[in-house]
């Protein structure tokens, strides 16, 4: 390297910078030129946001007034009052029972239907298409709406809740199961067939061993999410702890309400914990 005087050094750097600039011209464009797409999207998104705020009548005053009110309510919630503890525990058990039966019955019914909705095991295209669309429709209707419909049929109470969970889970399981069946590897089936196995044997020893861990983990996951759903369907009268919760908030029994909310949180966490343990055990076995 030749020795450069300071001024020579500066011109050298400037020259090299100019070369770099020319080589990566797109990086040195002004900000608005390189990011105009992002800016347009941002303006549109925030425009819609503020339109939403104004058309839904959301004002700063309302928000702060509400937060003040909320603060007062939180103070009134403390300490949690477990006055009718056994009553709450029974309602929580009812919630769990609804979740378990809804999940399980939907899984049992969705299992054969999943084969009909899967591309590789279905009877024909029309059956597959209509099965898929039916599952979509079942899922498209919310659990609370199903609960309202079933209350008209079997009356108020947890049974309506079980049926509501069943309908909505049937849609989810049908979709998930058929996707899992479509993703199954065909080589084990060919292996069974090549040893002279029947088609029943090829499903039992070729497809089921791949499928079972996936399906079971999906059922467990759904059970977790159903515990949450089952704890709110009581709001429309379909059994479980939601009924108690909505009554307490209407009558402003806030201390009892905070106890019930804590119970829901605790139960959901415990269920989540055990389900994830169980799921890990099942998937671990399947991976071996």
């Amino acid at each position: 390297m030749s020795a450069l005087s300071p001024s020579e050094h500066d011109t050298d750097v400037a020259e090299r910078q100019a070369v770099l600039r020319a080589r990566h011209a797109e990086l040195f464009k002004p900000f608005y030129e390189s990011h105009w797409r992002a800016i347009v999207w941002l303006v549109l998104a925030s425009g819609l946001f503020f339109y939403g705020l104004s058309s839904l009548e959301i004002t700063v005053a309302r928000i702060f007034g509400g937060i003040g009110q909320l603060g007062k309510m939180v103070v009134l919630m403390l300490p949690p009052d477990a006055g009718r503890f056994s009553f709450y525990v029974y309602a929580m058990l009812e919630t769990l029972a609804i979740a378990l039966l809804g999940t399980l019955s939907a899984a049992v019914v969705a299992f054969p239907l999943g084969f009909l909705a899967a591309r590789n095991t279905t009877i024909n295209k029309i059956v597959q298409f209509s099965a898929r669309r039916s599952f979509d429709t079942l899922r498209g209707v919310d659990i609370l709406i199903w609960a309202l419909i079933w209350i008209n049929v079997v009356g108020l109470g947890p049974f309506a809740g079980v049926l509501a969970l069943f309908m909505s889970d049937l849609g989810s399981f049908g979709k998930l199961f058929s996707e899992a069946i479509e993703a199954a590897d065909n080589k084990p089936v060919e292996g069974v067939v090549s040893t002279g196995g029947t088609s029943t044997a090829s499903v039992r020893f070729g497809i089921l061993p791949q499928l079972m861990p996936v399906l079971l983990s999906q059922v467990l996951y759904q059970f977790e999410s159903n515990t949450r759903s089952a704890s709110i369907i009581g709001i429309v009268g379909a059994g479980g702890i939601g009924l108690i919760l909505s009554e307490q908030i209407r009558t402003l029994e806030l201390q009892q309400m905070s106890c019930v909310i804590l119970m829901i949180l605790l139960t959901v966490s415990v269920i989540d914990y055990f389900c994830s343990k169980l799921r890990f055990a099942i998937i671990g076995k399947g991976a071996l």
Partner: protein
Amino acid sequence: MNSLDLQSAAYAQAVALKRRQLWLGIVVLLICVMVSGQIAEISLSKFFHHIGNFTSYFYRIAHLENGQFVLSDTAEWFWGWKKWLGLMGETLLMAYVGTLLGGCAALALCFLASKNITPNNTVVFATRRFLEFSRTVPEMVFALIFVVAFSLGPLPGILALAIHTTGALGKLFAEVVENIDMKPVDGVISTGGSWLHKVRFAVLPQVASNFASYALLRFEINVRGAAVLGFVGAGGIGQTLLEVIRKFYYADVSAVLVIIIATVMLIDAITERVRHRLLGQERKP
């Protein structure tokens, strides 16, 4: 005994153990089902006795007041379409505003919940517990409480959606951030960048498309959620749906349900397309 016999004996033992575990599991499950059946007041006789009501319910919601099939007079069926579409629009706006608010909060918090970006363990722990709390409480419960505090209308619904979204998206975002390539982060640190520089120039470019995809998925979920928040008076089309179901306006029930289902399916289709494009963009470079 030769080694083959030993092996087959060990195999038989292992299989027998597995079988025993399976049967034990099935017995425990059956006991749980029996107990649950008792608690949940399952009655098959009631079910089969009243199942006719279920099919006839769908028959009734498929027919107008004058007894004609709904499709024979769609103008009569959708007589309140202006009101209903307005309410559906309100529902969509609620879902949008709620998702945006929750998404922004999740974006701010997810870096604090990621061990590789935030070295302070206490901050990570506290942020994670907060996110966990906000997603474990069902949004309906938040809505019930907020309706009392903020009075009826879309505002409590939006806040309930926003809090739940913060918890759900915050967790997913943090998981994405924890799986990034750390080399760009090291690069920014080596040039003397601050925490904000680190996030802006090393982390965000890696995670932005994933974040957007998760946020769209959440929007989809929130549209469904917003459609029933009206059941507790938290705005949207749910209030109307509850009314028409409770008052047995059968044709209106099917009309409102059709509007909800069609909108949900439309939103699903659109967001799925956008998400595929976003994730495709990520793989390209």
